[in-house]
């Protein structure tokens, strides 16, 4: 795959990440104002103590990371590539942690979190890492 395609792919995946993390950030703050889908795990996951880190929703941290990665992809200097790949790799590790927490600690899955943790974060980590070859 050409570097141009990898770059476009990474930017698109980062945009999907921004959409998902943006939605989850909105849902986190709107948790006071909307009823989560009945029987779904999102309420349980979003309201758990694992949904925040030092008072900041993890979805918001994810949103910041995706925006930063997208900016680094746009910048595209060698250092920016390394920064994007490093941040995406960190996101991958943190997503794995969140998946484990959902599966074994909270014992509930939030579908948007799973989309992010199992699809978007790994895809972005892979695409940005491939650009370091």
């Amino acid at each position, binding site marked *: 795959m050409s570097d141009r395609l990898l770059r476009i792919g990474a930017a698109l995946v980062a945009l999907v990440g921004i959409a998902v993390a943006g939605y989850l950030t909105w849902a986190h703050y709107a948790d006071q104002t909307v009823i989560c889908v009945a029987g779904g795990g999102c*309420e349980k996951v979003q309201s758990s103590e*694992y949904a925040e880190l030092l008072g900041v929703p993890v979805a918001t941290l994810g949103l910041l990371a995706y925006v930063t990665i997208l900016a680094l992809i746009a910048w595209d200097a060698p250092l920016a590539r390394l920064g994007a790949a490093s941040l995406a790799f960190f996101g991958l590790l943190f997503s794995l942690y969140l998946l484990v927490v959902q599966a074994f600690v909270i014992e509930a899955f939030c579908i948007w979190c799973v989309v992010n943790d199992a699809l978007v974060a790994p895809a972005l980590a892979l695409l940005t890492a491939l650009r*370091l070859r």
Partner: protein
Amino acid sequence: MSADKAGSGIPRRTIVIAFAAVVAVAIAVIGAALYLASDDDRSSGNSAAVDLSGIDQNGMFLGDPGAEVLLIEYADIQCPFCAQYSNGVFPVIVDEYIRPGKVRSEYRGLAFLPGPSSERGLRFVLAAGLQNHGWDLQEALFRNQGEEGTAWVTDELVRELASEIDGLDVDKMFEDADSAEVTSQIQEMARQGQADQVPGTPTFFVQIGDGEPYLIQVPLSPDAFRAALDDALQG
């Protein structure tokens, strides 16, 4: 291309160091996140989401007896949406309507969900209500709600939560939980629920003055409740 440089022009050694640093930072952040989350667990029994101190409690009524509007809540201590109301909406109702004396609230407990915790929890809440602390205990139980259908309302949990409530005689509450008085209150609340055709929990009624209570069906959001209560206060 040099053997120790990737195609991107970045030395491979730099890439390896960067990724190793990321792993180290990730381990530190995840460790901190796990520690902070477990710390939340330990302190959750002590930090009320809402401060009820100084607000008049009489049995399962909360607020000024002279308030113009009464908000009646039918709830089951095991119901997740009741906990959502208690944790997310109730604090706003307390601060904006109950503490200023505009609205009074009545808790009518139902015990219809499967498992022993609904009735066990309700017995303790009503027993605390006999000492005018029922609202404090129901708030604490909702904040520490366990999985539906399990026996999460344990004596240990209740004792821990109740011991945080100022002015509550915990031993007396445990005695009263199995009393005929509490059983009679449970039966009366179930009868009221049937008479009001309560379809599930939480269900809310609003009563203006001595008028007939009417059902409000609104999302569990502060804004929706503000609108319903403001409407009632305007008569």
